[in-house]
């Protein structure tokens, strides 16, 4: 499947694809994180992440407009365990409203016997040029949608539709805006009382994150001493995927940036845990890369065993053995 994702981007097809994000793991995992979508972050698609069902609806409409204007395919990513299975009342724009927001699509590439053409991915179009052009488009996508950088594509069909309602990620408050936070999508455990530090609603919308948008967003809100990111994905050996992008966009900036990896494999992000992280951040005791609720002692024991035994077996086996979950069979 992944090959087709790249192919669609290469062909510049204005496709909108809903992605229900789930963790990819062994033997199987049905919970949510972002490792699946973010593994495809270099495929040339725009990726929009919905926080809740209302936003999923809004983003789809917006995605079509982006795809059609930019000839780029767009993924609308949403949580694949809770949002996709949740019923929630959402505001539906009328057809007329959608039509005014989304003008009729003008076909660019048509397979028409009356005017035959051959369409295929250009083998020999220099990949560098293509990549560069795609990067520029993504930047454009960010610029066009981000109100703070003069975007002209509103996030919603009609801004007036925006109204306070109960949502799954309800009761979000923005009282403490001292520290900007970049996040993507839905955080299960994010609750009002924990939001003291988390304020800047800067969703990682357009992957690769248009660096300019991120940085501008950060600068215009952040006078704070430190920035933090919580994310549900991990580039092994490199830290958080979102985090790395944000860090790159902050290069040269005096801001200190922290990354917190949380919720991998669908693990709950609890209020308590977040609270602890925010406290650490405020007291400057947060490490640059933190795994939320990591049982450090357990991991250390496993790593120690691996050091001793030449053939240590799968990592998961080692952890489970330590926990005593797997019985005699694995010895």
């Amino acid at each position, binding site marked *: 499947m992944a*090959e*087709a994702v790249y*192919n669609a981007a290469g*062909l510049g097809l204005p496709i909108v694809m809903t992605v229900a994000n789930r963790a990819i793991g062994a033997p199987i995992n049905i919970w949510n994180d972002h490792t699946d979508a973010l593994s495809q972050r270099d495929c040339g698609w725009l990726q929009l992440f919905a926080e809740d069902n209302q936003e999923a609806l809004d983003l789809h409409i917006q995605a079509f407009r982006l795809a059609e204007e930019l000839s780029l395919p767009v993924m609308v990513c949403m949580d694949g365990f809770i949002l996709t299975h949740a019923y929630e009342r959402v505001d539906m724009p009328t057809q007329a409203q959608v039509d005014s927001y989304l003008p009729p699509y003008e076909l660019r590439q*048509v*397979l*028409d*016997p009356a*005017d*035959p*053409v*051959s*369409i*295929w*991915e*250009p*083998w*020999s*179009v220099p990949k560098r040029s293509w990549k560069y052009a795609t990067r520029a488009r993504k930047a454009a996508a960010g610029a066009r949608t981000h109100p703070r950088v003069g975007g002209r594509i509103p996030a919603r069909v009609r801004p007036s539709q925006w109204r306070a309602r109960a949502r799954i990620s309800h009761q979000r408050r923005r009282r403490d805006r001292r520290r900007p936070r970049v996040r993507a999508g839905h955080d299960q455990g994010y609750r009002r009382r924990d939001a003291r530090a988390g304020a800047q609603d800067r969703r990682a919308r357009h992957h690769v994150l248009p660096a300019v948008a991120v940085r501008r967003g950060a600068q215009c809100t952040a006078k704070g001493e430190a920035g933090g990111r919580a994310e549900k994905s991990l580039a092994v050996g490199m830290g958080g995927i979102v985090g790395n992008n944000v860090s790159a966009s902050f290069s040269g900036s005096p801001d200190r940036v922290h990354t917190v990896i949380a919720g991998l494999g669908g693990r709950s992000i609890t209020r308590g845990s977040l609270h602890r992280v925010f406290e650490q951040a405020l007291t400057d005791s947060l490490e640059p890369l933190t795994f939320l609720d990591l049982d450090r002692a357990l991991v250390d024991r496993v790593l120690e065993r691996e050091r001793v035994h030449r053939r240590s077996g799968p990592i998961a086996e080692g952890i489970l053995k330590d926990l005593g979950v797997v019985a005699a069979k694995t010895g």
Partner: protein
Amino acid sequence: MAATNRQLVAANATGCLEVFSTPYPETSWQIPWIHSLFGNAAAVGTGIAAALRVQGKRDVRVVAQGGDGGTTDIGFGCLSGMFERNDDVLYICYDNEAYMNTGVQRSSATPPAARTNTTMPVGESTGARFGQGKNLPLIAMAHEIPYVATATVAELRDLEAKVRRAMEFRGARYIHVLVPCPLGWGHGSAETIKMARLAMETALFPVFEAEHGEVKHVSKIRRQLPVEDYLRPQTRFAHLFKAPGHADLVARIQALADRNVQRFGLVGDAEDAQ
């Protein structure tokens, strides 16, 4: 093309056909044509059919085509889905019995005992194994789609007639065409048609038509030839005949041919079998 009055859109899988027909920045196609991936020609065809349906262009027909690798291996899932949904696409597989474009690797359409670069007859090995691979025409028939046919390049008029027949149906249709590959089979390029003919006349490649899962017509063999007549001229089977030889394997291949004769009623009166 004539069968659709030139109202035709083609989707192509990766393969020789795609590579030689579209040397960037040129194309030899004179009909609307798209290449996406190796394994998704059937899916692209489905998409085109859907788009045409939305646009109300019922007179424009869709053909998807691929080689045996793109059809029987890589694109098999997409193809089976296309069959199962009965999408209005004619899928044509050009079967040269291996991945020839990439340098002759075995596919699931490679016949037993054939030498490919991944089934070299070295040591104990005697080429591709017996009992492996897929018979895609029969698999297609198992989907009970409206039309399934096999053909070879040795009988172009037959092939033409089958495309015409296929275009009389709506829904998923499948034509499996045997196309010898001089490079991969190891015969002279001028013998391409002859090889296809021998495949047919030895009964190793039965030529038939089926509708809704039932065989409707079988091309009878005029004179059944021994499989050796077909195997010997091809270097991919040369190891069968080099001393000390593998008479047992030739006999097994003959048994496969004889089974085809039984199964499809390939020998007998020229009247339709069923």
